[in-house]
């Protein structure tokens, strides 16, 4: 099978590259092994973001709030304020590191323990904002509660998305003059409509705050981008994994995937957007950190003891590991650039955030589709 561009990785970088190229008339295939960082998204992007992302996502139905070049603040589930650039529409952004509200209701589905209401309430009271934590229940959640492993974000969203009026009614009953309602991100799994409908139905501002994984808005956005990519004519190889590649004379000749093992896949250009350890863009053994598909040059400390910081909350050197490229984002193999291969997203060595992933992606897109 032959494509103009083959993209390895269906996360934020891979989907953005695919969608953008496809819109420019470049035929692409995305090889996606499944879960990626979007499924565990905080619902927001930090770091310098390219302007192009806002209109591109909007065409796919993904509304991004905020300013790509200027910091805003989001309220986190641990009760702190965090600097971000852009956010999905579920999230409320603030211009300063302070919540704009005088009285807040934190409403949680009864029995949902993946939403740390105590930390959120504490964060609000530290800002001097008065708040109350209350739980609400709907009959449809009862069956979920009976099975102890199903009271999770996605399970709740599946039940509540089609009962927004009932949810609005339940929240209405809890309201006592609050001007802000904090809810967990358990709405809008397949479309942003439930999020919008709830905002319309409740007479107070609503801020949807992240839960323990998986991320409902993250899954939604991933699906929206994938659909838009396919609608634009792209080929999405779902649940497949690139397992081997042939490189000769500094050029990728073909790759093979697990599901299409009798075929070779070829393209004019290849984009490696396979992410880091979680998505297996990088692997490690006792001895080394390496890039498993092409065997590219990786920048990371050689001694294993140097991969880590003692404090788990400090920057970890292993998390900055990644492939090394030339100025045109061609990765190096044995010190030489691979001329029809580009690297984008968190597979690149250095500090990682969504802004950096998107910036490198648009840079690669421009190199390919001049």
């Amino acid at each position, binding site marked *: 099978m032959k494509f103009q561009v083959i993209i390895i990785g269906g996360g934020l970088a891979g989907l953005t590259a695919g969608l953008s190229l496809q819109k420019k008339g470049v035929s692409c295939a995305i090889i996606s092994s499944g879960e990626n960082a979007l499924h565990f998204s905080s619902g927001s992007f930090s770091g310098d973001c390219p302007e192009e992302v806002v209109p591109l996502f909007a065409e796919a139905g993904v509304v991004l709030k905020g300013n790509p070049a200027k910091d805003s603040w989001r309220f986190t589930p641990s009760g702190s304020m965090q600097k971000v650039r852009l956010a999905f529409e579920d999230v409320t952004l603030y211009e300063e590191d302070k919540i704009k509200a005088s009285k807040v209701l934190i409403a949680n589905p009864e029995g949902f323990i993946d939403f740390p209401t105590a*930390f959120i309430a504490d964060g609000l009271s530290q800002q001097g904002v008065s708040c109350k934590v209350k739980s609400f229940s709907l009959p449809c959640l009862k069956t979920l509660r009976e099975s102890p492993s199903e009271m999770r974000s996605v399970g709740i969203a599946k039940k509540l998305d089609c009962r927004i009026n009932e949810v609005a009614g339940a929240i209405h009953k809890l309201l006592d003059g609050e001007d802000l309602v904090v809810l967990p991100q358990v709405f809008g799994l397949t479309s942003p409509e439930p999020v919008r409908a709830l905002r319309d139905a409740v007479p107070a501002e609503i801020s949807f705050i992240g839960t323990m994984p998986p991320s409902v808005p993250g899954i939604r956005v991933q699906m929206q981008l994938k659909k838009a990519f396919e609608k634009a004519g792209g080929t999405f190889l779902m649940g497949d994994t690139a397992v081997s590649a042939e490189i000769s004379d500094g050029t990728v000749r073909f790759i093979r995937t697990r599901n299409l093992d009798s075929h070779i896949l070829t393209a004019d250009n290849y984009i490696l957007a396979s992410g880091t350890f979680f998505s297996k863009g990088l692997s490690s053994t006792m001895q080394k950190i390496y890039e498993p598909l092409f065997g590219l040059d990786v920048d990371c400390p050689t001694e294993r003891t140097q991969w880590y910081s003692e404090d788990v909350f400090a920057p970890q050197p292993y998390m900055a590991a990644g492939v090394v490229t030339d100025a045109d984002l061609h990765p190096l193999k044995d010190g030489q650039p691979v001329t029809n291969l580009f690297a984008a997203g968190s597979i690149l060595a250095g500090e990682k955030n969504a802004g950096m992933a998107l910036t490198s992606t648009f840079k690669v897109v421009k190199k390919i589709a001049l």
Partner: protein
Amino acid sequence: MPKSYKDNEFDVIVIGGGITGAGTARDCAMRGLKVLLIERHDIATGASGRNHGLLHSGARYAVTDRESASECIEENMILRRIASHCVDETDGFFITLPEDDLEYQAKFVESCTAAGIRAEIIDPEEARRLEPSVNPDLIGAVRVPDGSVDPFRLCAANMLDAKLHGAKVLVHTEVTEIIKEGDTVLGVRTVDHVSGGAQEWYAPVTVNAGGIWGHGIAEMAGVQVGMFPAKGALLIFAHRVNNIVINRCRKPANADILVPGDTVCIIGTTSTRVPYEECDNMKVTPEEVDLLLTEGAKLAPSLATTRILRAYAGVRPLVSADNDPTGRNISRGIVCLDHEERDGLKGFVTITGGKLMTYRLMAEKAADVVCRKLGLERACQTAVTPLPGSELGGFRETVKKLWTMPTTYQKATTSRAGASARNIEKGVGLVCECEEVSSGEVDYAIRNLDVHSLTDLRRRTRVGMGTCQGELCACRAAGMLAAAHGCAERARDDMREFMNERWKGNRPIAWGDTLRECEFTNWIYNHVLGL
């Protein structure tokens, strides 16, 4: 006429909430004494919680230390009866590999038999059939009554029973001074690490059961106990590779025991002398990890490709047996010192040395001395009375007696709490999916088992001990602790500390899938939660 006590007066003060202290408190309380137990951290924080969890048959010591071997097999049989919910009756193999001397086997079996340990030579082929994970190259195998024991559960059950018999238990409370008058110990001064409050406690007898830290406690009392800290490093694997304990049939050496426990298995140990000052902060070195992996794969080759969960190290409280401070004659045997006889210091007893396996016997010896000093004749009952949780027998009998159709998490709860599972309310959610810990079980532990932090909770419920190492459950449990203790700030600091404690054990072995999991955890706590 019953004696009247003030609030801070007791018959005996026990210092140390490890297994020895907990056992001593239980024994004394069952003999009708008014007991105070003081622990500066939490139960089983030291060596009691940092070992293999091996229910020794005594076979390991049969050739080199007959007395220890006999003690082990006797206590082994007692623990099967009184602590059935903490014990897994797996049996053990002592295997001979081609590089070992098969002649040692005959001597080994002879010594076991002499010590009263059932030791049965089995055919290598039969050994491979019974334990498929064993090194297939083995040339000999002996089957002995080894097993596994959960030291946290055992310690918690002893502590709970002490309380049920009227003992007062203070965790996170540190002894800052031994109160003396002339040549007599009158009690202790403590500081409460949660509230910061200082207090004084009095009793005619104080027992030093501080394990390796007993060295410092004795010093505080003005006497010397010659301790020789020996660090032992171990690795936990993410799967229960073996169902039968695997040992090497040779003179005891490094990394030659593989013990299955709950959902995991554990290889260990190394043995290195360490300075006393380092006992509070043991770190596992890359060399120790290499050694454990290389030697472990000789027992069960699949360990070479099994994901490692954690590395950890404990400190054995070895003592010079003959009061010789140079430590020429170090014993693993039990050392019970009446400091009145030894040093002329009245009202002070040290119980140390020994092993997890012989904790009950150590406690009995200490309680005998306490009673003698108090002029009381009271018989020890701990060898025959089941611990709370073991009243209905082992796991299978208990499950059968409690439920007709147990859910998987009710079974998991019963495997940890034994018969006490009947007191645990059905929770609405699973806090820890890896270990199937329900919110009901977490709630029960917070209310009944002296839980002040996530680490305390982990020791009692296995929250955070599974494959994900606290990735998902730490935040859930922290939320429940925040609600129970009414302080979000404390719970959030606690969560940070807990994640760092988990990371300390991950760091030495973070590569492959473990590193993937660590990255994922980092995303959740740093980015999603915004800590």
